[in-house]
């Protein structure tokens, strides 16, 4: 009677204060049957990684609208590596210019969702790409 439940951390790194998108996504993940650890606004990369490790999540979904994605997101990847937790997959969504996406992916961000992506699309991506460990 045991079954792995997908656990996912949703949070917002850095200084932007718009969490509606993150809340909508968290709700969509809940409705998809995942356990969502919602850490809210203004998280530092250290806080995010530490929470992800304590909660033993399969993946981290970060919403970022501030423009600081090229700094903050690779930092999260780097910290995951330092803490030997690179098995936790990182993906993100937000206003991210097309030109920045290859760089982010090279830094270890598995997927980048930009404005226009539907919640269904994101949930489907998680279902197809994240296997609960």
């Amino acid at each position, binding site marked *: 009677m045991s079954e792995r439940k997908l656990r996912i951390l949703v949070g917002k790194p850095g200084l932007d204060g718009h969490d509606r998108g993150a809340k909508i996504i968290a709700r969509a993940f809940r409705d*998809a049957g995942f356990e969502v650890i919602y850490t*809210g606004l203004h998280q530092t990369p250290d806080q995010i990684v530490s929470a992800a490790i304590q909660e*033993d999540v399969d993946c981290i979904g970060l919403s970022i609208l501030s423009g600081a994605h090229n700094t903050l997101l690779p930092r999260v990847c780097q910290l995951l590596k330092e803490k030997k937790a690179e098995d936790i997959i990182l993906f993100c969504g937000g206003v991210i210019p097309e030109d920045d996406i290859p760089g982010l992916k090279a830094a270890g961000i598995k997927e980048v969702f930009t404005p226009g992506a539907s919640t269904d699309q994101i949930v489907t991506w998680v279902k197809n790409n994240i296997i609960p460990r």
Partner: protein
Amino acid sequence: MALAERILDGDIRAAARLMRNIDDNLPSSRGELQELYSHTGRAFLIGVTGPPGAGKSTLVDQITAAYRKQGKRVGVVAIDPTSPFTGGAILGDRIRMNRHAEDEGVFIRSLATRGHMGGLSRSTADVANVMDAMGMDVVIIETVGVGQDEVDIVRLAHTTLVVMVPGMGDDIQAIKAGILEIGDLFVVNKADRDGADKTARELNLMLEMNRYAPGAWRPPVLRTEAQRNVGVEELVGKMDEHHRWLLESGEINQLLQEKNTSLFQTLLKERLFAEVYGGVARSGKLSEILEGMLSREQDPYSAVEQILAERLSP
């Protein structure tokens, strides 16, 4: 290396992993818990319960900070509800506790109820045990926001805190059975709001109606404003006082007896049910019984008796 060994070695990831295995009910987790059991029993377990929105998480955050100031290591188990429709959950208690995320002396774990009643998840006691084995001095367990009858926490914690807020209904609420009977301490949080006096008065009145044997603990009613950290020092002082009283009066023995009985019963129930029900389902007998019940040719009462006779008689 097995998880238990790594946990005793201070490996955070191993601890987080075992908690997940416990929550997902993996058979391997039982062996690990067996290994850890002799390393538990040292932590002071605090239960925090109360209605949704009473400020439990904020209070837990402040209590955590207060114990950290004393140099104690703190574990937090925070429980939120699972959707009965989708099986998903949003676990949001960490939002109020983020400032401790980078503190290595604090470990916070969010759990979903996963259909379990009583205010806790099935896994809560075992997850608290893992934190105990990790060497946490204090483990704070925050229940889901409860209504009236979710009182499992009292069989797990040493000291139970019932958090109320002003304006939660008339005085008859205060004499009903349920969560208001289980508090070792009562907290009127958001005490700057209108009606705080009235709520505190009603709680006191209710407590005065109880009979106390000489030397018994009389639950105090305290006021806090968790958000502004008002009254928290005093609250922590009272919790420690209750803990000392448990130890000095010998009440701790009674409490542990009840706690261990409840733990053992739960475990036995769970394993027996899984074993017996699994057998019945696998053998095809279950569908037979269900069919029989549908046509009313088989009653469930004698079906159960028959299964018990078959499985349990020597």
